[in-house]
């Protein structure tokens, strides 16, 4: 692996840290999904950088395209769930979700 790959991996790690910090520290459900989006960007960047370093960028591209399609489905379902949660509880706070009973 060449030095460029290590540079890309450095930025991938920084993006992953940012996303995971958001998932751990934030309380708003929409903010949590923004964190998941940031982690997704790190994963796609890692895939393309590794494909480029191993001279196999076509396979990496097809994996990234698959990932993006899956991400769209994930975000659509998750945001529909968030809207339903808001209608039920009038809140987007994850701490209040933990207190729900019955």
């Amino acid at each position, binding site marked *: 692996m060449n030095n460029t790959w290590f540079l890309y991996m450095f930025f991938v790690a920084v993006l992953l840290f940012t996303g995971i910090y958001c998932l751990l520290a934030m309380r708003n459900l929409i903010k949590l999904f923004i964190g998941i989006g940031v982690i997704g960007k790190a994963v796609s*960047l890692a895939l393309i950088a590794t494909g480029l370093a191993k001279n196999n960028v076509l396979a990496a591209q*097809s994996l990234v395209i698959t990932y993006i399609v899956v991400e769209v489905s994930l975000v659509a379902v998750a945001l529909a769930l968030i809207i339903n949660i808001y209608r039920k509880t009038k809140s987007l706070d994850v701490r209040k979700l933990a207190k729900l009973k019955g």
Partner: protein
Amino acid sequence: MVLQILLLFGLVFFSVLAILIKDLLKAAISLAFASLLLGIIFFRMNSPYAGVFEISVVAGLITVLFMLTIALTKGGDAVESKTASFAFPAFFVIFIIIDALVMKKLLQKVPALPGPEVGGTIGQVLWKARTLDLVCQIAIIFAGVFAVLALFRKGGNKDE
């Protein structure tokens, strides 16, 4: 390479901004900017198809979905703890220092597996080598459509 590094710094900057900004609408727009920069990075890494998908789908469609949700829920009433926002820069700097010192040595210990050389065009790779992925994508899209339909069906909820 200098431009590529600047783009990567921009990607990290807008991602951090998306997490730290309190206004959710501005956060969604920063995430779209980050996607745009990632798409340009993909273009410069000889991956035009991934770049097109990243810009059109992630920067376009997902941002619209986020904005729609923020408009429908009015942003919610969740108050972020101030410690989380204030502690982030300290953790971030510590992580960057650890990353710069340790990551390269850690990654060099991971053995590089030999991968098969895939030739041809993106169409051949996507439709012939990765057909199973495409079938699974279709299944996931249908699952997503049915899940959204089930979540928004009318008259199904008797509690309200």
